[in-house]
């Protein structure tokens, strides 16, 4: 299925979870947060939350700023 991860189109097996999408970018779990279609998915729910076709996944972390 097609999903967008941080603005880039990607292909994931059907039934992939948020955790799998995050692992495509980073092995880190601390200091990272995820939103799917503009709704925050808490860390405890990454493994149990399945993605659907055309989901928009945003994986954020802290950077220098302000």
């Amino acid at each position, binding site marked *: 299925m097609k999903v967008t991860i941080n603005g880039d189109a990607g292909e994931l097996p059907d039934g992939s979870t948020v955790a799998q999408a995050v692992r495509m970018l980073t092995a880190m779990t601390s200091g990272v*947060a995820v*939103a799917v279609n503009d709704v*925050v998915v808490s860390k405890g729910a990454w493994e149990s939350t399945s993605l659907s076709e055309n989901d928009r996944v945003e*994986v954020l972390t802290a*950077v220098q700023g*302000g």
Partner: protein
Amino acid sequence: MNDMDDALVIGGEKFSSRLIMGTGGAPSLDVLDRALEASGTELTTVAMRRLDPAVQGSVLDVLRRRGIKVLPNTAGCFTAGEAVLTARLAREALETNWVKLEVIADERTLLPDPIETFDAAERLVADGFVVLPYIGDDPALARRLEQAGCAAVMPLGAPIGSGLGIRNPHSIELIVEAASVPVILDAGLGTASDAALAMELGCDAVLLATAVTRAQRPELMASAMRSAVEAGRMARLAGRIPRRRYAEASSPSLPRFA
């Protein structure tokens, strides 16, 4: 004088330093690290961005190592909705319910949008956040945000990164007079005297980044800012003399040869 006797209290939490730092604009994490140490800061902002796997080292490591509390901001947001989502992501990633709320009106001025900021503040307060909103030097808006439950108000001195100092000291004084939450002068400071003036006007703290990180010698400027904030705070507490049009002799007025 620089101990907990005169602590800054935000949202029930005490800080002995009244200098809040930003981390934007530093040429490297190493330079930032040394500047933060020299500043003596205990509270420092970070921004939230898409994770880039190519980036090595994290500003969070620097803050953790120094024991500095992290204050995520919502920089880059143009609407209340974006800011609320960014704050929630920051809460999840950084395990803090504190947020410097920043909703920008346009790219050219980077001035804060008062309508979107107020809308986001109400929603974030209702969601349990400790909200520190970045605003224009507007006493009416500052009062409304305090009434809405914000933990502090952060009026600008001048546009972000401009180094123009405090363009409207009178408005800052009006905000200070009316506020019962901390007033934190945020944005526009250029050099140490600007930070001292903010404190002399009665601000409870200052937040600055560019003035330090883009100075020719960031570490030295961080030290200067630290001293300026302390000096300005002490001067405020000491109570300055009134301004006079004419001289007033400070020596006894009797004739020298009576």
